[in-house]
C-alpha cells in the first residue's frame, strides 16, 4: 500500500509539473474570472448578450456558427433573449429555401428553427475570401483549442507589436499567444468598434471577455444544467455510499473474524 501511494504521488507530481504546452514560445495565457467555472458556475446573462452582439457585428462576417439555431438564443441556460427578440434576430437574416411549387429555390427570412446563417456558401469560398485561410467555424471552437477560453481570451488581446528580427508575409500578423506566433487574422477588436446595447464600455478587454463567454456557451449550451445535475448526482452518490458502507459493516459483523 505504501509503495502504491509513493508511486501515485510521484506520478501526480510528474503530471502537474509538466504542463501540456504546444510550443516553447507561447506565453502564459491572460487570466480572468470566468463566471461559469467551478462547481456552481453559471453564465452571466449580460455578458452572453453582449458577446452575441460582438459575434454578430464583428466575427460573423467571416466565422460561421453552423451548429447553432436561432431558437438557442432564447433557451434556458444561454443569453435568454425574449421570444420577440429572438424572432427579430432571426428575421434579420435570409436563408435559402425551396424548391417552391414552381420548382425554384427562393430566399426567405430566417425562422427560430433555422441554423445560424453562414457568411460563406462553403469552406472553399471562405478560404478564397480570406487569403487561403479558412476562418474556423465557432460552434465548438472553445473545445477545439487546448487552451480553451483562456487561449481565445488572450489571443484576442495578443496582437503585440512585431518583435525585432521577425518578418511577416503579407496578410500574416504577429500574435503573442497563437501557436507559432503567426496568425492570418488581423486584430479583430479595437476600442469602441461596436457600441454595446446595454451601455457597457466597449474596451478590447471587455469585448474579448464577452465574446469568449458567448463562445463558451455556444460550445456548451447545457453547461449550467450539467453543473447543477452534477452537484445533485455526486451528493446523492455520497449519501448512498454512506448508507451502503454502514450496511456493509453491519453485514460483515456477522463474520466472526474479518481478515
Amino acid at each position: 500500500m505504501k509503495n502504491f501511494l509513493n508511486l501515485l504521488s510521484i506520478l501526480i507530481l510528474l503530471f502537474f509539473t509538466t504542463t501540456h504546452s504546444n510550443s516553447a514560445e507561447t506565453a502564459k495565457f491572460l487570466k480572468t474570472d470566468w463566471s461559469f467555472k467551478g462547481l456552481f458556475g453559471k453564465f452571466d446573462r449580460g455578458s452572453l448578450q453582449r458577446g452575441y452582439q460582438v459575434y454578430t457585428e464583428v466575427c460573423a462576417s467571416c466565422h460561421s456558427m453552423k451548429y447553432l439555431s436561432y431558437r438557442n438564443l432564447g433557451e434556458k441556460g444561454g443569453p435568454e433573449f425574449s421570444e420577440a427578440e429572438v424572432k427579430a434576430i432571426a428575421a434579420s437574416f435570409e436563408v435559402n429555401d425551396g424548391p417552391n411549387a414552381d420548382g425554384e429555390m427562393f430566399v426567405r427570412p430566417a425562422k427560430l428553427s433555422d441554423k445560424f446563417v453562414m457568411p460563406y456558401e462553403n469552406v472553399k469560398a471562405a478560404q478564397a475570401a480570406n487569403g487561403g485561410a479558412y476562418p474556423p467555424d465557432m460552434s465548438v471552437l472553445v473545445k477545439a483549442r487546448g487552451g480553451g477560453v483562456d487561449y481565445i481570451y488572450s489571443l484576442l488581446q495578443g496582437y503585440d507589436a512585431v518583435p525585432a528580427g521577425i518578418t511577416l508575409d503579407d496578410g500574416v500578423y504577429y500574435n503573442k499567444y497563437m501557436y507559432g506566433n503567426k496568425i492570418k487574422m488581423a486584430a479583430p477588436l479595437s476600442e469602441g468598434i461596436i457600441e454595446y446595447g446595454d451601455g457597457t464600455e466597449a474596451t478590447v478587454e471587455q469585448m474579448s471577455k464577452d465574446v469568449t463567454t458567448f463562445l463558451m456557451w455556444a460550445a456548451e449550451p447545457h453547461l449550467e444544467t450539467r453543473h447543477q445535475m452534477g452537484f445533485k448526482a455526486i451528493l446523492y452518490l455520497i449519501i448512498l455510499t454512506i448508507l451502503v458502507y454502514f450496511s456493509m459493516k453491519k453485514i460483515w459483523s456477522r463474520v466472526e473474524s474479518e481478515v
Partner: protein
Amino acid sequence: MSDKKPKRREFLFTATYAVGAVGVGAVVWPLVDQMNPDASVKALASTEVDVSSVQPGNTITVLWRGKPVFIRRRTPDEIAEAKSVKMEDLIHPEKDEDRAKDPEWLVMLGVCTHLGCVPLNDKGDYDGWFCPCHGSHYDTSGRIRKGPAPLNMEVPKYEFVNANTIKIG
C-alpha cells in the same frame, strides 16, 4: 439479541434500498426520455403559412409535422352548403362552425381517417374531397359522408397570427 437491533438493522437496509431505488429511477429516465422528440423536432412542431395568395375556391397543401395539411379558402356557396347539412345525415356529426372558426378558411389534416391516404381535392359526390384508396367521400367541411372512413378529417390547432398568416400547431 434485543428487539432494538433487528429493527435498526432493518431500517438501515430499507433506507439503503429506498435511496438506491431513487437512483435507479433517476438513471432510467434520461434513457427513456432521449427517445422523445428532441429540441430540433419540437422547433418544427408548429409552422407558419402565408395564405395571402390563396383565392376563394382554391386549396393549398402544406407539410406540417410530416403530414399534409389542406388550407382551403371557401366560397360563400361552399360555406352555405357546409352549414346546411343536418347532423343526422352525418356519419361523424360535427357542426361546420366547430370545424372552421372563420368560415372562409378550412384548415385540416389531409389524411383520410380510414387508412391514411391523401384524399383528392375537388372530387367526390359531396363537392369536397375523394379518397381514391377505398372510396371515402368528404364534403365542403371535410366531413365524411360516404365510404369506409369513420371520422371527419382532423382539424389541428391553428390560429391567424395576422391577416395573411396561419400558424399551425
